[in-house]
């Protein structure tokens, strides 16, 4: 595929946010989605870090795309990503020490986040830096949307607060399970089921599209 074919930068940008949302539609990068969404602040910090690394890595790989060889490309992707993640990790440690402590190993684990590797593979290694940058920002915002949604739901239900401010009355029984690991699975499962229901309701109102197609989730099957 040459650099002229494929979606335009605008399409790439729009697609990343909802139509091809990395978390809800492609089920990529589930490790941070479940692990750092116990509070909205950590979810948003993680999204910002992922967005930055994705943008830098996508543009870099797009610039060297003619030099890539098929059998070593994944290693090249991860090495470039590892460089940028080291940068982010050091910056976070220097300027946002408590947050960097809170995110712990999940910050360096951005290196093996399959969203970034997948975007490098699908977009950056085939299209121009402009396409790659638009794609990175779109996908990064889609990721932010997903993490923000989960983080907000889990923090409100689990701690009764949002970004540290109390939003529910003190009488609210705090569902501590929501900020513990099982709550992440429950919240994400219910959110996906709600999106599924919404989508099949919308397709049912249109002419007669095949209902099975709208339910065909495509899980990313190996990495991350």
């Amino acid at each position, binding site marked *: 595929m040459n650099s002229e074919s494929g979606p335009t930068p605008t399409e790439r940008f729009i697609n990343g946010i909802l139509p091809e949302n990395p978390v809800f539609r492609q089920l990529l990068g589930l490790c941070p989605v479940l692990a750092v969404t116990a509070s909205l602040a950590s979810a948003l910090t993680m999204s910002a870090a992922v967005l930055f690394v994705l943008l830098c890595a996508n543009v870099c790989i797009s610039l060297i795309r003619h030099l890539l060889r098929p059998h070593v490309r994944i290693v090249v992707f991860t090495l470039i990503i590892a460089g940028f993640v080291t940068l982010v990790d050091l910056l976070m440690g220097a300027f946002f020490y408590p947050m960097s402590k809170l995110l712990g190993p999940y910050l360096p684990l951005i290196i*093996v986040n399959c969203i970034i590797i997948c975007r490098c593979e699908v977009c950056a290694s085939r299209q121009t830096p402009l396409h790659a940058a638009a794609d990175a920002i779109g996908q990064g915002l889609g990721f932010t949307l997903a993490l923000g949604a989960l983080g907000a739901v889990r923090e409100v239900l689990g701690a009764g607060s949002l970004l540290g401010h109390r939003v529910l009355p003190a009488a609210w029984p705090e569902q501590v399970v929501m900020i513990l690991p099982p709550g992440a699975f429950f919240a994400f499962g219910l959110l996906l089921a709600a999106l599924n229901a919404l989508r099949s309701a919308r397709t049912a109102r249109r002419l007669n599209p095949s209902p099975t197609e709208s339910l065909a989730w495509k899980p990313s099957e190996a990495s991350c």
Partner: protein
Amino acid sequence: METLGSLLLIALGAALIHNFVLSYFVGICPFIGVSRRVDLAFSMGCAVTFVVCVAATLSWTLTTFLLKPFGLGILTYISYIVVIAASVQFVELYIRKAHPPLYKSFGVYLPLITTNCAILFTCLEISKNTLLVSSAEAWGLHQALALALGGGAGFTLAIVLMSGLRQELEFCDVPKAFQGIPIVLIVAGVLALAFMGFTGSDQGLANAFRAGEVQVSALAEGVTP
């Protein structure tokens, strides 16, 4: 005895108490993607365990003898990626030579183990306990291997449990909106709740090891306490 107890604690901690998949959420993608059949899930678990052990050994050696003495902490992540990629290549070569049918059934998954976060997570935990602490507290190779073995066993346990449950789910009448991944996540949540039952048992085990040292050594000699 002290060492054996601490090794057991590290391994049990990684396998059950803080299960890699259900508590730390590392390796979630294969947990969801490759858990349709029990046999394939088990081989995936074994492959990950093997790669984790090789990568843990290499990264511990690298950290202790190269990164720490020369103050190259900044290169930690990049060097770990190189180590992991090399171990995956090694495992791939071995499986292709020794078990060609297994190699075929893995297909594209095998090279993608490079980007499995369970492996990098283990290496990072090892670096946390070697690079960032004083030499007296630094982990030895045996502790690193205990973590790798326990973590790999925990991953295998979780993915095999999940695939068994998913095979049963095939015959269940799941609500339409929950079909596919949502119900898998809910089931994983229930599994995680079950594994939370182990919370705190590490402290209890540590106390038991300390208090029961005498009795255990007596038992080992065949004397009833």
